[in-house]
Structure formats: C-alpha cells, structure tokens
C-alpha cells in the first residue's frame, strides 16, 4: 500500500481580486522509505499541496475543492478534524523553512521538544525532558543536555534546523514533509542538514516529501522528482532520468539555469519571464509564454500529464522532440 497518495487535488484561494487556483489536479505518491522531491518556483503550488496534506491550510481563504488525499489507505479529507489532529505529529509531521520563526521564542527548545511527548504520549514531565535530550543527541547537537534549556535565538541556524527536525521526528512519524528545510541556511550547513535528514529517513524508513526550488539539494537525496508549475505537475520522473534527459521544457530550463563549473565565462541560461499570476493563468499550456518550444497548439490546448516512460510522465505536447534532441 502506498503510504501517501494525493489524487487530483484542487485548492483555491479566494482573494479580493478573484479566485486563485493554486493547485490544479495534482497527483503524486510516496512509498515508505522513499523520498519525493517536489520542485518549483515560488507560487507553483508546492507548499500549498503540502499544507493541504497536513491539514494546516489557511481556510478561509484557502479551500480544497476536489481530490483525495489517501494516507495509509484512508482519505484524510473525509476524517473528522480531531482525528486528523491526532495524526499530525504522530503519523505525519512537517519541517518548516525558517526554524527561527518556526520555534516559539519564549519557550526553551528542550521544553518544546518535550511537549511532543507530553501532548501525544501523555509522558511525565521528567520522562519527556529525558526523551527531548535523547532526541537532541540524535540530531547531533553537541552537548545536548546542557543546551536543552536554551532558547531558539541562542542557537545557530543549522542547530535550530536540527531541532526542528528533531521535533518532527520525535514520535517517529511515517511521513515527513520538509518545506524548503535548507533554504534559510548557508551552503555548507545545508549539506550537513540534508545529510542528517537523509540518514534519519533511511533509519526510520519514513516517506519523505522534500519541497524545494533548489535542484542541487535534491540530486543526492531524492528518489523521484515532481516538477510543479502554476499548480500543475508538469513532469514526474526518477531523479537520474530527469537530470539526464528532462521531458519538459520547464525542467530543462531549470537544469540549464544551474551554474556549472565547466562552463565558466558563459552567461547563464535563465528562464525568461516570470511565473504567471495565479489570478490570470495563460490559456492553454500555462508555461507557453516563457517556453522556447511553444507553438500554436500550446496557446490553445493545455497538455495533459501523460506517461512518457516506464516511471515517468510529462505534460508537454512536444516531449518526444525534447527527448530526441538529446
């Protein structure tokens, strides 16, 4: 049984200027022990999808208008709120981008970690404190015992993110969603935190959804990648295949815009233009105004996500040309 399966999810936001369709029929799945990277620019709907899965969508204005979210076989969207709350933290957990703002500034980190055990397992104060220190050791925080009483602002960015990871891992959930977990960190620390996350995921055999806009981050740790654009998944493939031969011009654009050591002195191939305003998504393929391969058909018909290989799919009319060009 697939651990998490999102099927044809639709999310809308009512704004003063109209309805923004942030997620338009997203379908993806994660197995236990698998890492799925969801890649996309700001506003592509990757975080909104994750919030819908966790059940922490801001509603109103957000609204799930269709689809299913199957977690361990049960449709989360049909569960009563109280039951969903019990799943959060215990069976599925989330890691946030900026740990400084995601940790409560007036509580010590040890207290916040211990709270997980006290809320979900009704552990005693002392027992919970003890487990909190163990957790801090687990995420490799030096002299964990001495630092449990410290407040979030007293830790460095990397250490704070480790604490955030420890909080998410506390109850050994089956699924972790990490929303840009390393974006707020500098590059060397990014690698350490990513490595830690990958190690722990292997150890606990959790499903991991890694939301990011950084291609470099996902290359080493992800099994599969889903690329999102304007609320759609435009390409989904195993990491190696996607990096080797992208099946969508948007993916290709993203890969080409990564600086490379062997192309010194050349100008970077950035994708032209800006991501579309969700209130005015272009007709046809949402990517066509920025696409170097766009033709007449792209302006009229939105391409469906179609199978283009054993384990991969793409939403481009011209995926064949793209693959053949390599």
């Amino acid at each position: 049984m697939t651990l998490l399966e999102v099927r044809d999810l639709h999310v809308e936001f009512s704004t003063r200027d109209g309805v923004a369709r942030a997620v338009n029929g997203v379908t993806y799945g994660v197995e236990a022990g698998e890492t799925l990277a969801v890649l996309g620019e700001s506003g592509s709907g990757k975080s909104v999808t994750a919030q819908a899965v966790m059940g922490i969508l801001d509603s109103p204005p957000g609204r799930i208008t269709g689809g299913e979210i199957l977690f361990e076989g049960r449709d989360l969207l049909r569960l009563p709120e109280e039951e969903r709350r019990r799943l959060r933290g215990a069976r599925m957990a989330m890691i946030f981008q900026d740990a400084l703002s995601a940790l409560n500034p007036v509580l010590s980190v040890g207290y916040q970690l211990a709270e997980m055990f006290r809320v979900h397992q009704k552990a005693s104060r002392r027992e919970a404190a003890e487990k909190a220190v163990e957790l801090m050791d687990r995420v490799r925080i030096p002299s964990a015992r001495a630092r449990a009483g410290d407040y979030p602002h007293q830790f460095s960015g990397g250490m704070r993110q480790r604490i955030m990871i420890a909080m998410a891992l506390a109850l050994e959930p089956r699924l972790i969603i990490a929303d840009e977990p390393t974006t707020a960190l500098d590059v060397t620390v990014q690698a350490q935190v990513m490595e830690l996350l990958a190690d722990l995921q292997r150890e606990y055999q959790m499903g991991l959804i890694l939301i990011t806009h950084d291609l470099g981050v996902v290359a080493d740790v992800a099994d599969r990648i889903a690329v999102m654009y304007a609320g759609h998944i435009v390409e989904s493939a195993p990491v190696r295949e996607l990096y080797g031969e992208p099946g969508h011009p948007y993916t290709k654009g993203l890969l080409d815009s990564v600086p490379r050591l062997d192309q010194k002195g050349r100008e970077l191939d950035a994708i032209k233009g800006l991501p579309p305003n969700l209130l005015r998504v272009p007709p046809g393929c949402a990517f066509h105004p920025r696409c170097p391969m766009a033709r007449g058909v792209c302006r009229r018909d939105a391409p469906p996500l179609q199978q283009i290989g054993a384990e991969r799919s793409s939403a481009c009319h011209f995926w064949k040309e793209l693959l053949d060009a390599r």
Partner: protein
Amino acid sequence: MPEPERPEPDDSEETAGTPALEVAGGAAELTASPTAVPERPAAAPSTAPAAEPGGEPGGEPGGTGGEPERARSLWSDAWLELRRNPVFLIAGALIVFLVLISVWPGLIASRNPLACSLSKSLDPSAPGHPFGFDAQGCDVYTRVVHGARTSVTVGVLATAGVAALGSLLGGLAGFFGGWWDAVLSRLTDIFFGIPIMLGGLVFLSMTGSRSVWTVIAFIVLLGWPQIARIARGSVIATKQNDYVLAARALGASNSRMLARHILPNAVAPVIVTATIALGTYIALEATLSFLGVGLQPPTVSWGADISDASQGMQFRNAPHILLYPAAALSLTVLAFIMLGDAVRDALDPKLR
C-alpha cells in the same frame, strides 16, 4: 537576527560534549558519553526544561559562563532591563509603599479617618496632625492615608477586570475570527462611541447607593473594549507566526496553541496598556467622585475629598485641604503611568 551567543563547539562532539555533561549533571562520572545519558537519572533535575526564564542549566565548557551567556527569554530580558531603569525603580518603590499603606493604613496613620470634630474645622497643621483639618474637622493626613486604599483597590481591580474580560473576548475573536470577531468588533465600536465621563454621569447617577464595587463594575463595563481591541490585534499578529503553524502541524490542539504558543507571545501589549490604564482608572474614580457620582461617604476617597475641599472656595483660606489629597492623587497616578511606561520600554524590543 542575533548570532549565537554561545560558541558552537565544532565537529568533535566527544571533547566538547563531555565536560559540559559533567557540569550539567553535577555527577562527575568519568564514563559519561552521550549514549550513556539516559541511564543517569541523577543528572535529570538540572536539565528539566527551565520553567524559570533565567534557569540556566549547566555552564560553559570553557568556564567562560557569565552574564551575557545566560539563557534569556523575553521575560527575563525585560526583567533585566527593568531592574536597570531608574523610572521603574522610583515608580516601583512608590507603588510598593502605596500598596502597603492601603493594606495596613494603621502603619503610618493610627487615627480613625471618620473621627472628626467640627470645632477644628479648617485648622492648619498642628502637632500630630501634620496636614491640618478639613471643613468637617477631620484629620487630613489620616484621610489621605486611608484614601490610598480606595484608589489602589479601584485601580487594581478595575484593571484586572478590564484586562481579563478584554483579553478573553478580544483574544478569542482574534483566534477564531469569523462572525464572533465581526460582532465583537462592532460592539467595541459602539462602546468607543460612549464618552467615558458622560457615560459615568449617566450610569452612576442612576444607581442609588454606590460602593467601590459599583465604580469598578462601571469602569470594567466601559473599559474592556480598549483591551479587547489590543488583544485581538496582538493575537492575530501572533497567530500568523510560523511557530503557531508548526505547532498545528505537529498536532497541537486549539487550547494548547492558545495557552502555550499564542498567549505568552501576545500578552505583552495587553500588559503594557493595562498598566498605563491603571493610573487613568484611579484618576477616573477621583474625577467621578469629584463630580459627585462616584464614591459616597463614609468611603474615604481622594476624589471626594478634593470635591469637598473645592466647595464654596474654602481652599482659599485653607489650601491644605485641597493640596494634600490632590498631591497624593497626582503622585499615585504618576507612579502607575511611569510603571506602565517602563514596562512598555522593556517589553517592546523595537523601542530599545
């Protein structure tokens, strides 16, 4: 964003970790290693999450621990700031003194404030009666001292009532939003439209006998919207912080999010406004009593005494009957407003 105040021990966990563990545990077990930690209950007490903001578990590995290295929260930070603020110290001393004499007025004034003899009407100060006598021949010093109780009671209880009611209603409106928020916001608008002085004249003149409790109830009734509005705004601002979302994503219930994550982070503006309001409520009670719709004899109130003193221009010949209660009132209001100012400076890091 503050840099870590504590030097991060580098990659060598063993060397950095062990001395710290020994300091923290107090029990110097040479075999201590991170993996052996759970079997050491002796070390538990010092590492229980610090309930006290200043609770500093363990010391620095290098023994460089000192004032700047201490674990500090907003509250302990604010306390440190307050302790160094002369305005707070002066206001605090005055308030401690006021509270003491309002609980035990006999400490410095042993006479009965209601024992008066008309034969001494408007007499100036005499031995044992430093402030002289008022029109009824009552000892002004005794009445000023006993009047503190009324002012402090009204101020403190009205503020407590306003803060409790206002932050409850405002906080819930901010947290849940929706129709309750809309209803409450319109309700506060209506209350804001009532001038508090005019409202006092109308409401209080309708009640027959007025005690301290009537006046407190009136102030709470008209004062809560101010705090409700601030609490609502503060809760809405706090609610949008990532840590509230994170708490939700990790399974916290609504009541827990409110109690642990929102309340402690949203309460500062309420405390500040309430402390400043305390002084104005004392002045309000005095004003209402002055206008004759506040407290009635035999309750001793500065406002009522000031009102009596200004009847028929008696104070021209005997200024002491107006001067002393007025000075006591001004000093008290000033003390509470200074306290509020100091607390605001300490709790609002942006003003530093």
